[in-house]
């Protein structure tokens, strides 16, 4: 039982259930299956993004440019759709994922080839991506009537009772889970973050691994860009502004160590769901949406404090054993 409680994912599941239960005490409608499905659907984009951020954070880097990448990819998707409504949507999605990966690879190359600290690189590309949107669109909005019906319909379409948006996030979770646990590159993400020097001695190219992590986060941001723009049916310079903090918050809450090497797909998903439940519950329990930023900030700080405590305790136990011997 004690071991079970120490498991991060199980703790989070309990926390989420407790949270939902508390809300349900006053608003029973919140726990209706249809509403829970809606909450999950609303969190899908955050989950997709958190999966990419997780890979980057595992390698001891950080990607602050994800939201800007999402916005740039999203607006490009909308502009292509507005100019050439005939382009089939699957092709468009593929193009946008590719564009996101290319934008991510810029971060990756700067980190890999020039050894610039990741935070500086992504702070810089964040503003460059946002500025490029302005240059591309001249600050104009792309509204619902300029997008084709097929473009807007895909995330909303229903399949086996759930929206396609939800299914896409489930597919992303499974794909990233397989990548993390069943492939050499997934192991390399953990190895590079856990101990970069040891990783080099086992034949892993640290820089290349980080580059690939950025490509993954970029590709997922590109996918999220299409989903965001088509779901909300509007594209402008400031879409998803500040969302990079939510993504990092989801990862930190999910127990992904900012020092690298520790984390799991389950953690990223549960961390996102935790934030998603809070976000959807705020209007229900009558708290001003303006409070959301402060709540995210508080949750980040609490989560990182809890992470630091569990991580440091591990070290102490080993020392005590050594003394006993």
């Amino acid at each position: 039982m004690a071991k079970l409680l120490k498991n991060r994912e199980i703790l989070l599941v309990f926390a989420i259930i407790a949270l939902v239960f508390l809300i349900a005490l006053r608003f029973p409608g919140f726990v209706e299956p249809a509403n829970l499905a809606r909450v999950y659907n609303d969190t899908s984009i955050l989950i997709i993004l958190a999966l990419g951020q997780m890979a980057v954070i595992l390698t001891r880097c950080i990607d602050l440019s994800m939201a800007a990448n999402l916005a740039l990819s999203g607006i490009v998707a909308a502009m292509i759709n507005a100019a050439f409504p005939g382009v089939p949507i699957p092709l468009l999605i593929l193009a946008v994922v590719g564009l996101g990966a290319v934008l991510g690879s810029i971060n990756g190359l700067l980190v890999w080839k020039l050894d610039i600290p990741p935070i500086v690189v992504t702070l810089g590309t964040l503003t460059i991506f946002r500025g490029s949107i302005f240059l591309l669109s001249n600050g104009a909005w792309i509204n619902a009537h300029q997008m084709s019906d097929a473009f807007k319909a895909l995330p909303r379409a229903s399949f086996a009772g759930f929206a396609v948006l939800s299914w896409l996030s489930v597919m992303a979770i499974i794909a990233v889970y397989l990548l993390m646990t069943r492939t050499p590159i997934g192991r390399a993400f953990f190895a590079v973050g856990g101990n970069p020097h040891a990783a080099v001695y086992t034949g892993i190219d640290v820089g290349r691994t980080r580059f690939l992590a950025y490509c993954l986060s970029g590709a997922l941001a590109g996918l999220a860009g299409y989903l965001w723009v088509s779901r909300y049916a509007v594209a402008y310079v400031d879409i998803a502004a500040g969302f990079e903090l939510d993504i990092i918050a989801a990862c930190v809450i999910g127990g992904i160590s900012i020092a690298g090497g520790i984390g799991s797909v389950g953690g990223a998903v549960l961390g996102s769901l935790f934030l998603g439940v809070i976000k959807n519950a705020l209007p229900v329990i009558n708290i001003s949406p303006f409070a959301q930023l402060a709540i995210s900030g508080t949750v980040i700080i609490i989560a990182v404090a809890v992470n630091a405590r569990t991580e440091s305790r591990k070290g102490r136990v080993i020392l005590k054993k050594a003394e006993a011997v």
Partner: protein
Amino acid sequence: MAEQHLSPRLIPDRLQSRSSRMLKSWESLLLVVAILIFALNSFASPYFLDPWNLSDATFNFTEKALIAFAMALVIISGEIDLSVASIIALSSTAMGLAVTMGADTPVLVLVGLGTGLFCGMVNGLLITGLGLPSIVVTIGTMSLFRGLSFIILGDKAYTGYPESFAFFGQGYVWWVFSFELALFAVCAVVFGVLLHKTNFGRTVYAIGNNQTAALFSGVRVGRVKFILFLLTGLMAGIASICLTSRLGSTRPSIALGVELEVVTMVVLGGVSILGGSGTIPGVVLAAFIMGMVTFGFGLLNVPGIVMSIFIGALLISVIALPILWSRARRRMAQ
């Protein structure tokens, strides 16, 4: 200024002369760039050289530079503070709240400084008290502090600051020299002396170069870092007073994204983002350069968001160029 040349990698058989060292330094390169931009601007626009115009141009950088001085110390010690723009917002909101309660200028200044100090204390306690990484903590407090302003203000704005409060952002000390410019000059000297001429400054370098070694040499690492975050909060509070006084109003989105410009200014000034080296004169020159570039762009009617592309590219390239340069030189030497 000699500390940064004591890196363990290069130990020449004799020291370079003081003059040749100064010629090759990052600061002299910045000086050349500053003079070039100044010359370009005065060619590009006939209005640039007007003393009042130049005086207006200084407002582009004075507030950010005030924070950049403290941020330089934080970054030299190997930490970072991304919450400064949010501290400006919270201080400004607190001052606006005080105005609605009928506070006068001296009280407003105290409220602004106090809020800044308090925010710095929160950062410092979380980072040194609990030993958390400063980048995550300040990302967290960045949304917490601005979130608090949003809770207090919502979509409203505070105006109605007293007339005497306008002096800090709009007043002039003598002829074209504004209060902000004078404050900038005083703070430059104070921080320059603090970093380069006192024991405290030396401990900041020591921590940035090797925190463990500094700890074993008797430096109270935690306390020094705590003071640095406190100082950054205080400077953000001062900047908030100047900015609020200059704008005459407070919105929760005030100073959005300023943290990026402050970090860019510090890095452009030659402070290593990995900690351990950098100088205050470098930051002063970087402040002048960034201020004049934005002012020049403004004269050429370039929109603000395009300027932000430039600042982002500048941030990356000032770090990338020295790396590429040293690689190219090594390749030539082989």
